[in-house]
């Protein structure tokens, strides 16, 4: 792993004008973040946040209204940078009259890969994404999940250093998601950098070294995933049974919430109160079954951060 920056987005904005009245849509409103070599970088935000628009600007499919994108120190869209980037579009769709091997042949030719290498590479890629069994079907007969897998294969045809995936996990069943995540981890192991977007927080939490989180085209957070999650106030969850009625008032003074599940109580509190609560429970001869520190999930952090964005932006 190196700290070499390979993708930099600075002050990036995109405004669309829609309809007869040229109504202005500010899809991206000033983004700054950078991706270093060897990272898995998550690009997080709810639907409509501006992820696809940003990624398309990185791919030079659309041009920024303001700001800049640098990939491998170059402007996007140059042949030199395109050779090193593999891209999976959102909801990918391909020439459906072709078989996967034919389309990979075509894309391989565009990458200038020699014929012998091409054959071998196509074979390996289809194996890698789990489509070898379907390689003789035309893409018309592919399900959404299969297209997504094929999309990954075509992104990897040029053996890219940077892989940009727009919602790679959408349209996949649970097994497919697991496999896709494993492939992404595998890419990192091969020394590739992966930048991928998702609106599902759990997908990114475990996989990504760093994240950029956006909403309404603005950056809410960019930095290490762990710092982001740890920032959430840690809670402790205590499960206890046979809790005597008499101590409830004392418990409630320290706990954030107490919920009953049959004979069990689930007590949520902050870290500082946990000690006191456990002591109370033990002394009252209640049965303490578990004490689990619970870090806030990204989902909860997201909801909290989206409500108070300024407080969280860190560079």
């Amino acid at each position, binding site marked *: 792993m190196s700290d070499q920056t390979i993708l930099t987005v600075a002050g990036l904005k995109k405004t*669309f004008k829609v309809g007869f009245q040229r109504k202005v849509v500010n899809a991206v409103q000033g983004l700054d973040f950078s991706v270093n070599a060897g990272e898995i970088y998550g690009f997080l935000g709810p639907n409509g946040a501006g992820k696809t*628009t940003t990624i*398309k600007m990185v*791919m*030079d*499919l*659309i*041009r920024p209204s303001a700001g800049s994108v640098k990939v491998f120190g170059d402007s996007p869209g140059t*042949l030199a940078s*395109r*050779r090193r*980037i593999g*891209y999976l*579009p959102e*909801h*990918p*769709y*391909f*020439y*459906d*009259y*072709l078989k996967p091997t034919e389309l990979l042949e*075509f*894309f391989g*030719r*565009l*990458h*200038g890969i020699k014929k012998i290498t091409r054959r071998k590479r196509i074979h390996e890629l289809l194996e890698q994404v789990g489509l070898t069994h379907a390689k003789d079907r035309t893409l018309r007969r592919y399900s959404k999940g299969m297209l997504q897998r094929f*999309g990954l294969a*075509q992104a990897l045809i*040029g053996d890219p250093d940077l892989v940009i995936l727009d919602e790679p996990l959408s349209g996949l069943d649970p097994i497919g998601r697991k496999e896709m995540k494993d492939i992404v981890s595998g890419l990192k192991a091969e020394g590739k950098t992966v930048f991928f977007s998702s609106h599902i927080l759990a997908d990114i939490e475990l996989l990504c070294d760093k994240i950029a989180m956006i909403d309404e085209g603005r950056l809410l957070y960019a930095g290490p995933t762990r710092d982001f999650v740890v920032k959430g106030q840690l809670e402790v969850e205590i499960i206890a049974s046979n809790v005597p009625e008499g101590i409830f008032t004392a418990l409630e003074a320290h706990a954030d919430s107490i919920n009953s599940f049959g004979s069990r109580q689930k007590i949520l509190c902050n870290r500082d109160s946990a000690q006191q609560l456990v002591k109370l429970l033990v002394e009252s001869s209640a049965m303490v079954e578990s004490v689990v520190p619970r870090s806030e999930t990204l989902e909860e952090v997201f909801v909290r951060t989206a409500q108070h964005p300024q407080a969280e932006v860190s560079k």
Partner: protein
Amino acid sequence: MSFSINRVMAIATNTFKESIRNRVFIGLMFGALVMIFASLIMSEMVVFDQRKRVIQDFGLFFISFAGVLIAITIGVLLVYNELKRKTIYSLLPKPIHRYEFIVGRYVGIFIILFVMALILSGAWFVVMLLRGVPLQPIFIKAVILILGELAIVSAVAILFSSFSSPVLSGIFTFGIYVLGRQVQFIEELLHAQKGLFVSLPSLKPIGQAVASVFPDLSLFDITMEVLLEVHVGWGYVFGALAYALAYVVVFIIAAAVIFQRRDFV
């Protein structure tokens, strides 16, 4: 600038593979083939010395007519379909220049038109041989000139489709084809002492614009020469092809410039 003929040919081959499956192409090809063979029957209905003419006229007309319709529909639909089906998002980010995409598409369409001309003129020659008309070089010249015209028409189609909807592009392209066929006539009208531009002088600037900017497509129609057995030299053919090439280059460069600036949202 690092134009790659390999990449352009890869894109052209892909275009060809796509178009050859196009129903419009297959339908028009088949229709034109039927009409060319039907001219055998039609020729039975006229007096003997007109038979040859009917076959020649039918053949050239349907090769040209099917060709123009194929050039317009495929030219207009290829770029549009690429956007509609979102296949462009996986193609353009590959290491290619945007203008290579346009040139590749154009070459692909031209190959399709070439194949069409080959098949239809083959059928036409067979029909003529069946009618006892000996093959002459002018027949080949006539087909080559039709291809020259189709080269211009498909470049116009690509130019319009680089910024406009397929229906509008189709209408505009067809309009340019129709007016292009009339450029000589319009020029004559402009110099005439009576007629359209005398009774409606406000139309004159439009007429002048059309006459000076639009390609003169009547150059590519030598049906009369074929029918009347007037000699047409290779010099004329190559001159007309050079004229076509000049227009094609201008239209394709314009299409590439427009395409280069586009957002693919």
